[in-house]
């Protein structure tokens, strides 16, 4: 039936992605490159959230970097506290606090840093802090029926505000350098090649958890309501739904995904800084989603992988041309392939494959998923 959790072609799609992430990439890449791909995959968490918010729900957020950053900072605060033992920091004027606090003449750990001594609290905060902020923004915007381009601009402003706040409050946040020199997780050194490999697989597994949650939401009535809201918000409202509540929920879910991605970024890359929070990374995240296909959660993962891989490859050889290339790519996708890679797959490749493998009896083309935009 149509309402099952995974259709056959979706099951194949998930299986192929699992093969790529868990077998093909680890076998083909050395541990440095694998770690890079692990970093790219952390952006996929954000892109999947954007598929739900933007692709399905029509809520374009240009501030997902905020939630990615909040999740990443929560993780980084825990790791930084663990790295700042009194023995490691004995040369500081106040041993036992993070080095950047000491440099900024702080003599004791601020109260709001204290709970981050606990791993359990920090992991909770990785999800809860982004969700809390998304909830506040969501209530403030959606209850007042702010939407569309106004919402996008306001989220962008939040990205700018958070960056400025982090840079300005250097003593509490590490400022423009971010939180660096992270070493161990409960005594386990996260800087070794083996640890990075383990973290890559943890990251991949978490990504699949997020993908399954996203798939569940899309297949539920809530997923269909999001599409309905995107097309006819008033009709949904006058069918007895409180539209704002649904928008707040999906925005919070996207924020939770982004927070998990941010935390995995911190673990794999070993630092968190305001350059990952601001306007530019937030827009890049939207581009990952657009290139992959904003209607497809799997497409979003490929988009994040491909664009980041291209970014690394191109910016190694032509650093000054990369941004122009990225902009060109975005324009090309929007103009020629509004549904991104996933759209190319479902409209051009999949029907041909089906025709190839089903020689007799015309297969019903189930791939007319072109949205009327």
């Amino acid at each position, binding site marked *: 039936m*149509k*309402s099952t959790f995974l259709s056959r072609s979706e099951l194949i799609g998930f299986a192929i992605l699992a093969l790529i992430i868990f077998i093909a990439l680890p076998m083909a890449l050395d541990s440095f490159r694998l770690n890079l791909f692990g970093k790219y995959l952390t952006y996929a968490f954000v892109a999947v959230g954007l598929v739900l918010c933007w692709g399905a729900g029509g809520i374009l957020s240009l501030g997902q970097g905020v939630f990615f950053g909040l999740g990443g900072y929560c993780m980084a605060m825990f790791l930084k506290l663990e790295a700042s033992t009194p023995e490691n920091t004995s040369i500081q004027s106040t041993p036992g606090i993070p080095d950047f606090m000491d440099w900024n003449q702080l003599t004791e750990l601020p109260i709001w840093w204290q709970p981050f001594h606990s791993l359990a609290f920090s992991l909770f905060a990785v999800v809860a802090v982004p969700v809390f902020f998304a909830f506040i923004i969501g209530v403030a915007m959606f209850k007042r029926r702010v939407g569309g381009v106004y919402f996008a601009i306001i989220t962008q402003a939040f990205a700018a505000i958070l960056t400025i706040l982090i840079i300005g409050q250097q003593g509490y946040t590490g400022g423009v350098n971010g939180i660096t020199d992270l070493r161990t997780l409960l005594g386990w050194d996260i800087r070794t090649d083996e640890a990075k490999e383990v973290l890559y697989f943890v990251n991949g597994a978490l990504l699949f958890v997020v993908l399954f949650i996203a798939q*569940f*939401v899309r297949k*539920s*009535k*809530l997923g*269909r*309501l999001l*599409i*309905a809201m*995107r*097309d*006819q918000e*008033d*009709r*949904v*409202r*006058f*069918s*007895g*739904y*409180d*539209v704002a*509540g*649904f928008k707040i*929920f999906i925005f919070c879910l996207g924020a939770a995904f982004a927070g998990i991605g941010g935390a995995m970024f911190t673990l794999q890359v070993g630092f968190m800084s305001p350059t990952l929070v601001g306007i530019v990374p937030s827009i890049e995240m939207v581009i990952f989603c657009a290139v992959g296909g904003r209607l497809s959660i799997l497409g979003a993962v490929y988009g994040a992988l491909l664009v980041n891989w291209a970014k690394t490859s191109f910016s190694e050889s032509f650093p000054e041309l990369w941004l122009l290339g990225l902009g060109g790519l975005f324009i090309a996708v929007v103009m020629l392939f509004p549904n991104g890679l996933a759209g190319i797959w479902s409209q051009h490749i999949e029907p041909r494959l089906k025709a190839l493998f089903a020689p007799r009896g015309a297969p019903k083309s189930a791939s*007319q998923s072109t*949205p*009327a935009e």
Partner: protein
Amino acid sequence: MNVPNERFILKVEGLTVSFDGFKAVDDLSFYVEPNECRVIIGPNGAGKTTVLDLICGRTRATSGSVTFKDKELLTMREDQIVHAGVGRKFQTPSVYEDLTVFENLELSYPKGHGVFGALAFRRDDKVRDRIQEIAETIFLEDLLEEKAAFLSHGQKQWLEIGMLLIQDPELLMLDEPVAGMSVAERKKTAELLKRIIEDRSVIVIEHDMGFVADIATRVTVLHQGKTLSEGSMERVQSDPKVIEVYLGH
């Protein structure tokens, strides 16, 4: 005015809305009885659609009162008004084009309206049977798996009527339900509407006088936001004021 509550399902009293000083609806009062089919007619700009917008909460009134079964609607949110039992069809067909006919009807099924209710919502046989039943009423039983974008204009209108029927509202408000339809579709729609207005109160905005005469219990003629005339179709048609501003040309 002291009107006993139990006689009327909807009481509109002194309803006024002003847009930057322009009174689109001006001190309007009317009363709808249970099982009545009230047709609102009037020239363009008379405020017909605005009246429906005010009742269903889409536009906020400047003053006045709208009570539905003793509940004041003017202070309620749109979705709360729907749950109180008021359904509204828009002038242009508002259906979800990217979803199938089945899904369109399913989203209007009165269950799972909260965030977590919608996540937990399952298509059981009761839901399927009800959707099948409604689809047969609105002549779309063979198109359940079709995307709404591929329906004709008339079929979209029927689908939206079906989406309202599945909610089973006590008061149904229809804004020009036969506008833009072919003659054949129009006939079928008239037949459909006659069937669905039997056991509920309905407010209809319509220009087609033949159609109005066919369905109306009573007619209210609006002009410049005020009631010009009210009564049976014959009475309204012979009212010299109505002939002058509306029916005459």
